[in-house]
């Protein structure tokens, strides 16, 4: 065996301390920058606070009333939950276009089982949740095993589930009165209670808890890190021994399950159950919340807390514009401007904090 080269002999004397630089006299600005650098979800939060302040100034006290502010939360609960599901999928560099209709069909199933077939609601709800999870599982299998692009898979299942929804439900709305009479459990998340002037629903609480739980899972469990790794660089994730297929299956199934949970919350909010909810573009709203919240559509980057703030930003803006009495078309116009504006501010804060 040959010997180490001559010049390598001196290495034994080399410096052994870990590199570090003076952090003395670091300015406040720089500290803020470091903080934002390490907490990317804080950025949409700042944008959120800014928009509340702007509308508050423009509209005055009425907007700041706890009634209004909590109403906004009620309005975004469903989109927020769907956004959380969408976030999981987008973190894996996928997208789930079917999430809105999965919610609708789950709601219809819950309603039909509980009201139509007269099963106890305590069983109808799990059945609905199961349907959602199965839809997700189908997406996951097609993405992970057949290796089709998520956009196509979920565009396809969107059509399939949408049609199934209308065929299965015969387009019939289940009335609120019938739900209340036969399956009040379905209205659970509509339960509201007052804290001072603020009106909160269990749906709002559920959304917040769900996001916090997912945040924990994504950041503090191995599985969560794997979700990020799969989205970041699937090839690298696979080579470092992550079972990317299983992760994808789990993510899509979980997204379906959460969508079904959103269905339960939506029943609480709307009272009745209508297959034609499918017309509303819940997907686009959920994706918008996700992207405004700073989740990269290319996967692997962003915090789910951002999605929550993203949904709130959208809610604040649309409520604010409503209360300003903007004309519908001008409202659309300003929504567009504000979407761009919110993300531009976000980007700018990130830049100065880089």
């Amino acid at each position, binding site marked *: 065996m040959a010997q180490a080269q001559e010049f390598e002999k001196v290495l034994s004397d080399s410096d052994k301390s870990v*590199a570090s630089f003076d952090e003395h006299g670091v300015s406040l600005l720089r500290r803020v920058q470091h903080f934002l650098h390490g907490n990317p979800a804080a950025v949409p939060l700042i944008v959120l606070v800014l928009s509340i302040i702007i509308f508050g100034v423009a509209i005055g006290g009425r907007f700041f009333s706890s009634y209004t502010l909590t109403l906004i939360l009620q309005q975004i609960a469903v989109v927020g939950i769907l956004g959380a599901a969408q976030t999981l999928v987008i973190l894996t560099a996928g997208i789930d276009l079917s999430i809105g209709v999965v919610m609708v069909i789950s709601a219809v199933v819950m309603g039909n089982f509980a009201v139509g077939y007269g099963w106890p609601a305590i069983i109808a709800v799990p059945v609905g949740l199961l349907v959602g999870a199965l839809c997700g599982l189908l997406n996951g299998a097609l993405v992970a095993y057949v290796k089709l692009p998520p956009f196509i898979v979920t565009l396809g299942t969107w059509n399939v589930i949408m049609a199934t929804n209308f065929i299965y439900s015969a387009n019939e709305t289940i009335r609120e009165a019938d739900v209340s009479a036969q399956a009040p459990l379905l209205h659970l998340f509509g339960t509201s209670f007052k804290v001072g002037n603020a009106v909160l629903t269990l749906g709002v609480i559920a959304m917040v808890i769900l996001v916090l739980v997912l945040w924990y899972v994504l950041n503090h469990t191995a599985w969560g890190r794997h979700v990020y790794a799969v989205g970041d660089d699937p090839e690298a994730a*696979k080579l*470092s021994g992550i079972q990317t297929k299983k992760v994808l299956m789990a993510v899509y199934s979980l997204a379906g399950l959460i969508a079904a949970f959103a269905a339960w919350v939506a029943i609480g909010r709307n009272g009745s159950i209508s297959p034609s909810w499918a017309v509303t573009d819940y997907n686009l709203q959920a994706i918008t919340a996700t992207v405004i919240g700073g989740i990269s559509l290319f996967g692997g980057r962003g915090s789910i807390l951002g999605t929550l703030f993203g949904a709130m930003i959208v809610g604040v803006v649309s409520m604010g514009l409503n209360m300003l009495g903007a004309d519908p078309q001008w409202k659309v116009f300003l929504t567009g401007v504000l979407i761009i504006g919110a993300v531009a501010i976000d980007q700018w804060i990130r830049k100065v904090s880089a």
Partner: protein
Amino acid sequence: MSVQPLLTARGLVKRYGRVIALNNADFDLYPGEILAVIGDNGAGKSSLIKAISGAVNPDEGEIQLEGKTVQFRSPMEARDAGIETVYQNLALSPALSIADNMFLGREIRKPGIAGSLFRMLDRSTMEKRARDKLTELGLMTIQNISQSVETLSGGQRQGVAVARAAAFGSKVVIMDEPTAALGVKESRRVLELILDVKKRGMPIVLISHNMPHVFEVADRIHIHRLGRRLTVIDPKQYTMSDAVAFMTGAKKPPEEALAA
């Protein structure tokens, strides 16, 4: 040699469209040895070890581990069988932190209920161990252990990948150019680490273009050329010049070496 090889491959073929990356390649790794694999750029070295470690499925050929035919359909399966690999492209997740990457797929959980029920990661332990491993490799310029891998310098990244494999290998460790981006000091540490692993009785496959390194640590040298194993030589019987001449086609290897 009468010892049974630990890992063998026979007649591996891998085609990519028109390109033939492996053209009937053979391979043998004996227990406890350091086997160097050398060859021109594009000779098929990485393809060979990818085929062995389950990262690509060869079109033809057979692989045996401890005498049993195996067919790894994923790197996960190879890892479970005890084969740990440092890939040339490193296989790190750019947006994740150093510690996250080091422990990817075998994270450490908090003790007690936090870990068992809530499956909470033990970040501080993971970060501490990561820091230790890197310090062992001499990678002292990493200022912030929680920074994401994409913000590391080229050499620091390679250090992370090498540290990971060394920490977890159980039967075979394969390293594809582990020192390519490393500095003098860091390379030396990796070589020491390789010898260290060998001392623990584990065989190592080392792909490298650095002849002094190869001749310093290798027990046998597998020379790869044009998609197949050209010959295997003993570094004590041949010089670096011979090895380079064989691998570049400047000289034909002698008959007996061919059979090795």
